């Protein structure tokens, strides 16, 4: 059996996927923290442990993501777009559009019927348009990142923000809470803002069904619903959306190994 690994050192989370040929056998997700090099080693170690393997069993490792270069043990690096495309295709062969909501950027890509990206768009580099905004707000509202999605669905009255800056939105959220606004309403407002930005990107690229949503932001069901509402269509959602790029990286590794012999 040939084993390969994909690793995605994201700005927010690091993920590793171990595959036996083209079957996923283990994965791990952990916060990236400040030291990418260390995190890269840890995340692959954890995943390997789950798989009952060690690094020397791995035939080929491909790294991707913001801190890909820090995974010094990897055999090569690949761009996030191509990893995402491969990962999405593996999970949803019918997907022709994918939205990835990551910590720094939102990416929208178009896929062909062979799972390759044929076009893509990236968001602006302002935290107010990224998944990072969710983390910031979750922290000030003292809610677990995991819980914001469900909670926001309870909202009856969306609160809209006066500021376009993620940093100032933080203090604004705090004041709104003090004024008696419900946390779910603040979250719902936030979701709408983000969803609107994402919709515009999708529209600019042109949506083709099916459309998948991946990346950490996709774990936020409130955000996903808000995007669905805006786009007027259902989105395909993987069970663990955060590992899609790492999965794609592992697939790149597998291609290498299986082709290169």
């Amino acid at each position, binding site marked *: 059996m040939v084993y390969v690994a994909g690793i995605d050192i994201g700005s927010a989370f690091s993920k590793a996927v171990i595959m036996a040929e083209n079957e996923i056998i283990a994965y791990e997700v952990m916060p990236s923290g400040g030291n990418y090099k260390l995190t890269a080693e840890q995340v692959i170690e954890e995943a390997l442990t789950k798989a009952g393997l060690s690094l020397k069993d791995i035939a080929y490792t491909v790294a991707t993501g913001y801190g890909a270069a820090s995974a010094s043990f990897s055999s090569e690096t690949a761009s*996030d777009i*191509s990893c995402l495309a491969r990962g999405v295709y593996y999970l949803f062969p019918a997907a022709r559009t994918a939205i990835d909501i990551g910590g720094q950027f939102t990416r929208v890509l178009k896929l*062909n019927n062979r799972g*390759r990206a*044929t*076009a*893509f768009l990236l968001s602006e580099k302002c935290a107010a348009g990224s998944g990072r905004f969710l983390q910031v707000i979750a922290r000030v509202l003292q809610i677990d990142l995991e819980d914001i999605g469900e909670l926001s669905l309870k909202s009856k009255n969306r609160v809209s923000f006066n500021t376009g800056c993620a940093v100032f939105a933080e203090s604004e959220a705090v004041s709104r809470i003090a004024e008696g606004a419900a946390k779910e309403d603040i979250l719902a407002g936030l979701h709408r803002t983000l969803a609107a930005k994402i919709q515009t990107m999708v529209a600019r690229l042109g949506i083709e069904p099916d459309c998948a949503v991946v990346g950490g932001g996709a774990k936020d069901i409130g955000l996903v619903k808000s995007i669905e509402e805006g786009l007027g269509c259902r989105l395909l959602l993987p069970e663990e959306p955060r590992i899609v790029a790492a999965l794609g990286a592992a697939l790149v590794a597998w291609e290498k190994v299986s082709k290169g012999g």
Partner: protein
Amino acid sequence: MTEEKKPEERKRRKTATEAASRVGPMVKAALAENLRAKEEGRPIAYSFIYSGYDEIIRAMDIVPAWTENYAGVCGVKRDAQRFLEKAESENFSRSLCTYALCGLGFDSWREETGEMPPNPPWGGQARPTVMLGSGQIICDPRYKWYQAAQHYMPDVPVYVAGLPYPPYEDDYDYRDVQGYYVKYIVEELRGLVAFLERHTNRKMDWDRLSEVIDISDRTWNMISEAYDLRKAVPCPMGTGDAMNTMVPMTFMMGTQEAYDFFKDLYDELQLKIANREGVIPDEKYRLLWGGGLPSWFALTDFNYFNSKGAVFPAEVTYRLVEPVYNLDLPRVSDPLEHLAWRWVKYWAYRHDKARKRPGSNPDVERLIEYIEDYKIDGVVMHEAFSCRSWHPGLIWQLNQLKRIYRDIPSLILESDIVDISSYNEADTRARIDAFIDTLEAVKSR
């Protein structure tokens, strides 16, 4: 590909052609010539490239100071920020054309202190005798910039020559209106000559003007023929180099030197083709630079593309000529009238072609033409945030191209021409990497 980030010690970009590598010194020499002219009291004209008056200035022996070029030089040297900041401190919005802001920052600084700003890139830009704007074409800064500069140099006269060209419309043909366009342009150019005679104590020598125009016509042809050679596989010269060779095309038109330059380029490219010598030995993707001015501080991105197996045989940007013999120009004796006809016909060059393809327009038609002629695999554009002339409409052009022609991989980079704070090398390269992957995906379809 490692790039130093320190402005001082950036290494010189590698060019593919010998011709392109000669350009840096040419620009430097031109700037030095400006300073010399200033010392000798010869008239200097602030000028815009491609304003249809190159030949007039040359024939009258007026020294052009290409203000866009100087801003670009500051950009290349990564030393524009202080001038942009100065302009901002004068209350100019940072969203305006950064060529103009850089120039206005520089001028207001020079006028305020009475001397060149400290360590100006390549000796600096001398105070002009006159400023020659142009109306209606290309952009608003072409008349607003010099008007704004006058606020700091109230005694320097400005002339704005109207240089329109007919829009592409459904309900009439450009030939229905070309007559009054040409007439207007001729009058405006005549006004320019009179203005220059009034303010520079130079006289127009009309015979000389005809000679200069003859050189420039021949240069137009020579450029077109040289650039056509880039259709070869492997491609002998890319857009990175064309961002250098645009210099003799736009800053030296009407001079023998420009003609000779392109003749040399032509010969060099011929030779390269004979030797099957390409920009890169293993050419995987042929890309079209489909619009947008480049980020002058990041020309090495072209080399980065090359390192990924991609080459740019053609670009829309700065391809400001067509073979004159294809333009169907009427024979006229007035040199100004010839200029006007050439101008109008150049801009209307693809109107007829566009009409044959439903949903097309001349801009889209040009993209299609280049994609076919140069065997293009993908289109790259750059949206420079500060310039509203070349950049609005690119998204639509790309969308339309895909709607009426075919789905072709495309990438829109977003940054600026001069303002480096809008640029992030790591991000840009990540985008390029991803784009290369999409090219690969489409190619192996």
